[in-house]
């Protein structure tokens, strides 16, 4: 675990989201330390993605607050939150499929570039310098995810695993302090999963970002996370190191249903 003295990047208090009568996320408290890798797990429909979407500003919370880097994110639009320093990927990859890989990463830099449209029309020296630097930085990021040689390819042409990596590079382009990854290894084969796990750790080490991920692959969660939070029916039911969470009765119950003393339920052990 990271040192106790490390600052808190994300501090969520009492975050709640109701859709009509349904409470998707129910008064969740949550913290991410600087340079920490945290996982959010829970059965389907537990409210993980809803939680993500509230942090990223896609949904307005019904109540509660999100403090990022010491300031509240309440009322901010998603693009403002990105500018504050939260980068994200999406559960079902959302690349700009008609654009090249390079352009995808450059769009990721949007909030870090300053040139106005007028500067672009006149191609002022400041704008040219900024563009050149941005291109160089984008290429570096593509190198990091080993996609630099396809920089001029359309993103839609990439196979699935590469698309996930490109999405990662694009999220990093906004120079985030916190990276939200929504199921980064979903649909990957074991080698790809391993490569992605390595990449996430490398990104944390090299860029010093904190990472919050939603993940279904327990192997990945256990390998990667320094801290795991479990949601069920919108409520936080457990929190702690991977080992602690693994042994938590409530968690096992949430994943496998109420425990009966019937032999067929012993399959439980295998699953966890």
């Amino acid at each position: 675990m990271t040192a106790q003295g490390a600052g808190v990047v994300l501090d969520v208090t009492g975050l709640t989201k109701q859709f009509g009568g349904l409470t998707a996320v129910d008064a969740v408290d949550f913290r991410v330390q600087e340079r920490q890798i945290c996982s959010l797990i829970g059965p389907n429909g537990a409210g993980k993605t809803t939680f993500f979407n509230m942090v990223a500003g896609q949904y307005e919370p019904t109540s509660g607050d999100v403090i990022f880097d010491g300031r509240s994110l309440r009322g901010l639009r998603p693009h403002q939150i990105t500018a504050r320093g939260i980068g994200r990927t999406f559960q079902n990859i959302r690349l700009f499929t008609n654009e090249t890989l390079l352009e995808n990463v450059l769009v990721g830099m949007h909030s870090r570039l300053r040139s106005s449209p007028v500067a672009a029309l006149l191609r002022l020296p400041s704008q040219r310098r900024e563009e050149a630097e941005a291109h160089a930085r984008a290429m570096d990021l593509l190198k990091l995810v080993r996609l630099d040689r396809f920089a001029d390819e359309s993103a839609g042409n990439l196979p699935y695993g590469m698309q996930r990596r490109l999405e990662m590079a694009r999220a990093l382009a906004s120079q985030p302090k916190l990276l939200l990854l929504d199921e980064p290894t979903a649909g990957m084969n074991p080698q790809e999963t391993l490569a992605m796990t390595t990449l996430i750790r490398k990104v944390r080490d090299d860029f010093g970002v904190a990472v919050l991920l939603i993940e279904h692959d327990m192997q990945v969660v256990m390998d990667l996370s320094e801290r795991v939070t479990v949601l069920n029916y919108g409520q936080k039911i457990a929190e702690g190191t991977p080992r602690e969470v693994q042994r938590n009765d409530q968690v096992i119950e949430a994943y496998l249903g109420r425990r009966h003393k019937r032999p067929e339920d012993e399959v439980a052990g295998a699953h966890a």
Partner: protein
Amino acid sequence: MSQTLAPALPTASRQPNFGTLARNLFIAVVLTYPFLDLAFGWQALLAFIPMMLMITLAMGLNIVVGYAGLLDLGYAAFYAIGAYAAAFFTSPVSPLNAILPDSPFFWMQDFWVAMLLAVLVAGLAGALLGAPTLRLRGDYLALVTLGFGEIVPRLVKNLEPWTKGVKGMNPIGRPYLFDCTFGVDPCTIFGTQYKLGMIPYYYVTLAIGALSIFLIIRLRNSRLGRAWAAIRDDEIAAQGMGVNPVTTKLWAFALGASFSGATGAIFGAYLQTISPDQFEYSTSVIVLCMVILGGTGNVWGVMFGGLLIQSFDRIFAERLTGWVHKFGAATGVPAVATLLSNFDLLRSRLFIFGLCLVLLMALRPQGLLPARKRRESALIDETEEEANARHDAAVAQAGGPQ
């Protein structure tokens, strides 16, 4: 996996020499066209000027429709606003003419100043229309722009004291260069007098068109241009990347409209008269046709589509019809001659444009020259179906998108 992948082809080798040659030839013909026209007696110069104006107009619309992905069915409204703004400042029949000459703002009556003002006014109108529509979904946005496109010509018709109503405004201030006033012969250049006819208009139109293309390409390859593409492809992802959808769309509306402002000013000066019926719905749709036919989002595609539609509309439809009539008469069979003399392509232009749109949507929705060809490449070691299948499996496992 990446070891098995071949390196990408260098960009240069994709451009064969033939293409460069054709391009240079095209540029040479365009630059010297008025003289070729004179020498060969093609008599198409007067068709080429409005043609190039329409293509420039399509370039502006392409910003809105092609780059930012916002379907605009009332683009002619901005064209009208540009044309009327320029006429408002420069025409002797304009009510402003009563006060401007003796005011400190007399310089606004200068054509070039008026044209810049028209650009500003049209751009402002674009932003003003854009502002309330940004939250709307695509098809509703299309309807709102259509409504706006219907309102503007009717306002022009009804606000007679200012716009001269259906009669239109006439004459309109002319552009000039040195001592040469465009369209007024003889034209004095450095002390010598020439009879140039409409040739100066050809070159000023060409210059405006070329400048537009130049500027639009710069915009496309800037931070704003990338934001447009991102918004068009996936608005939610774009927001997640820090793109502000509101300002991005507003810029598209404003910049798109401002190009039509310049075009409208030249158009009015060229025709020397403007009236509301020049800016109706069918104008908007024909410009839209040009953008869609050529390939939304690609400047060269739009130019190509514009050339196709405009040359059909202004040159070939008429001549083909004439040829068919002559052919009918030449056969000597009265029945054939009568039948063919009823053939009129110009009367069928709506049908042909409509059919073009329907066929394009069915067969090639990305247009004849799409923005970026999805190159078949050896790089990719997984077919799209496989990738999609894997993705679907992943989503299903995750319980579907929430």
